C-alpha cells in the first residue's frame, strides 16, 4: 500500500519546511536540497529559445521561418506542460520527490513558451491584424482550443506563488490547478487539429497525457475505496 505521506502530492509549503531542516555539512546557510536543480532547469529551458534566435539571425530557419518558430515554441510549451503534469504521478509511482520541487517552474516555463508562441502568431504571423485574429480565434476550432488553453494557464501562472496557496487555502488552490489538465488536453487537441495528416507526434503527447490522467484516476479511486467509511459514514450521521 502506498498511502504513506510520501505518496501524497507535496504541498508547496512543505518544500520550504524541508529546506529548513539542518544539513550534516557545516554550511548553515545551505538552502533546499538539490540547489542546482532549478537553476539547471531554467538554464536548459532557454536552449530552444536561444536556438530559435540564433537560427533567425543566421537565416537558417528554413523557407517559412515564422511557421517554424511558431511550431517550435508551441511544441516546447506542450513538452513543459506535460512534464509539469507528470511530477505528482512520478512521486506516487516511484517515490521521487525532486520532480515536485520543479513543478512550479515547469508550469511557468510552459506558460512562458505558450505566451511566446501566441505573441509570434499575433505579431509576426498576423501583423497584429486584430480583426483577423479575433476571427481566427472565434472560427477556427484549432485556434479556439489553443487560445483557450493559454487563457486557462493565466490564472495558474498568477497563483503559482506559495503566498497564493496560503491565501486560497490548499484545497481550493489544488482544485484551481487541476485546470492544468484541461489546458493540457486542449493543447493536445490544438496540435491534433493543426496537423495536416500525420498525427503521430500529437498522439505521442496525447498518449502520455492520457496515461498521466489514468494514473491520477486510479490513485483517486484507490484512495476513495480505502477511506469510504470515514467519509460516507460521517456524512450519514450528520
Amino acid at each position, binding site marked *: 500500500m502506498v498511502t504513506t505521506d510520501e505518496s501524497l502530492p507535496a504541498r508547496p509549503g512543505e518544500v520550504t519546511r524541508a529546506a529548513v531542516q539542518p544539513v550534516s*555539512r*557545516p*554550511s*548553515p*546557510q*545551505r538552502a533546499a536540497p538539490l*540547489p*542546482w*536543480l532549478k*537553476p*539547471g*532547469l*531554467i*538554464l*536548459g*529551458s*532557454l*536552449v*530552444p529559445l536561444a*536556438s530559435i534566435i540564433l537560427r533567425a539571425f543566421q537565416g*537558417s530557419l*528554413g*523557407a*517559412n521561418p*515564422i*511557421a517554424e518558430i511558431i511550431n*517550435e515554441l508551441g*511544441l*516546447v510549451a506542450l*513538452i513543459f506542460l506535460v512534464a509539469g503534469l507528470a511530477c505528482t504521478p512520478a512521486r506516487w509511482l516511484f517515490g521521487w520527490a525532486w520532480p515536485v520541487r520543479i513543478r512550479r517552474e515547469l508550469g511557468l516555463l510552459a506558460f512562458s513558451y505558450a505566451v511566446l508562441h501566441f505573441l509570434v502568431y499575433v505579431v*509576426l*504571423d*498576423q*501583423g497584429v491584424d486584430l480583426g*483577423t485574429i479575433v*476571427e*481566427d480565434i472565434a*472560427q*477556427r*476550432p*484549432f*485556434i479556439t482550443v489553443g487560445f483557450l488553453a493559454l487563457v486557462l494557464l493565466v490564472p495558474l501562472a498568477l497563483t503559482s506563488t506559495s503566498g497564493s496557496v496560503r491565501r486560497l487555502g490548499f484545497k481550493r488552490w489544488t482544485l484551481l490547478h487541476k485546470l492544468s489538465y484541461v489546458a493540457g488536453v486542449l493543447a493536445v487537441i490544438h496540435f491534433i*487539429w*493543426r496537423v*495536416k*495528416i*500525420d498525427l503521430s507526434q500529437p498522439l505521442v503527447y496525447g498518449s502520455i497525457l492520457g496515461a498521466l490522467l489514468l494514473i491520477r484516476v486510479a490513485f483517486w479511486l484507490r484512495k476513495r475505496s480505502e477511506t469510504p467509511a470515514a467519509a460516507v459514514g460521517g456524512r450519514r450521521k450528520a
Partner: protein
Amino acid sequence: MSTLPPEPPSSEITPESVYLGRREFLKNGALAVGTAALVGSGLMLLVGQKPPPDVPDSPPIAAVNPPAAQPAANPSGALLPAVAATGPFTTDEPLTSFESVSTYNNFYEFGLDKDSPARQAGTLLTRPWTITVEGEVAKPQTIDIDTLLGWFPPEERIYRMRCVEAWSMVIPWLGFPLGDLIKRLEPTSNAKFVELVTLNDPKQMPGLKRPVLEWPYVEGLRMDEAMHPLTILATGLYGKVLPNQNGAPLRLVVPWKYGFKNVKSIVTIRFTAVQPKTTWALAASNEYGFYANVNPEVSHPRWSQATERRIGDLGRRKTLPFNGYAEQVADLYAGMDPKTLY
C-alpha cells in the same frame, strides 16, 4: 631563526564554512550546468532540430532559345533565357529563391517534413523512366521520358503557386502544355477526365512505408482543365532539370489550383469517363476537394484561405480568386457553385 614565512594573520584565514561552501558552490554549479545541458539537449531532440538541407544542383536544361555561350558550371539559381513568356504565362512578381523552391516541399513519398524531400529524394532514379498511357485512349502505350521530352521543347512559365497550407511561391518553371501531349495521345470521346499517378516504389521512396495517404498518389483534372493552356507538365525550374524533390522527371503544374493538385514524378496518364478518386479527397474530402481551386472565400475547415504568406515575405498578402488567374479560367466553372470547388 625560522626561515618560514610569517603565518598570515588569523583574520585572513578562510573560515571553514566558507571554504566548504565554495566547494559546494562549485559542485552545485557543475551539477546545474549538467542539468541545463541535459534539459537543453533533451528539448532540442524532442523539437527535432536538424541543419538545413543542402541546396541541390541540377544540370541546366537547353530551353527553346538556348543562350549562345552557356557557362559550363551553371551557378545555383541562375536563370537561363527561354521562350519569352507573355500575358498570363508569366508574372513580374519577384521570384522565390531557388533555395526555398528546392528545400521547402510537400512530397510525402520522401517524408512529411518540408525539408525531408530535399534530404531524401536522392534515392529517386529518374532514368530510365517510362510513362504509361491507358484508359479511354485510342492507342494505349508506354513512352520513354526522353522520347516524350523530345516531342515538346521546354518553355518557361513563371507562375504563382499557392499551397493549401496558406503559403505561396513564384516559380519559373520549364515545361510544356499538358494539352499538347493530350492531343498527341488521342483520348477517345469517352474521356472526360485525366488521371495522373506518381511512382509507387518503396525502394526509391522511403515515405511510402508510412500509410499516411493512400498510395500511389493520384491526382486528376477535368478534360477542359487539362487542355487549358495554363496547365503544364513541368520538366525543370530555374532553367535547370527539376530537382528530384520537386517531382522529377515530370510533374503537373496547374497554377489556379492548390499545390496538392500538382502531382509529381508521374508514371501513369489515364483517361477516364468518371471523376478520378484523388488522394487528398480520399484522405479528407471535406478539406481537400477534387477541384481545389484557390478561393479566398472558402476557408479550409481548420484555417483561413483569405491570406497567404509568400515565402520570403514577413507579412501576409491577400489570396486572389483562382490564385490571380480568374480572367483565364473562371469561365471553366460557369454555372457551378464556387463554394463546392474547393
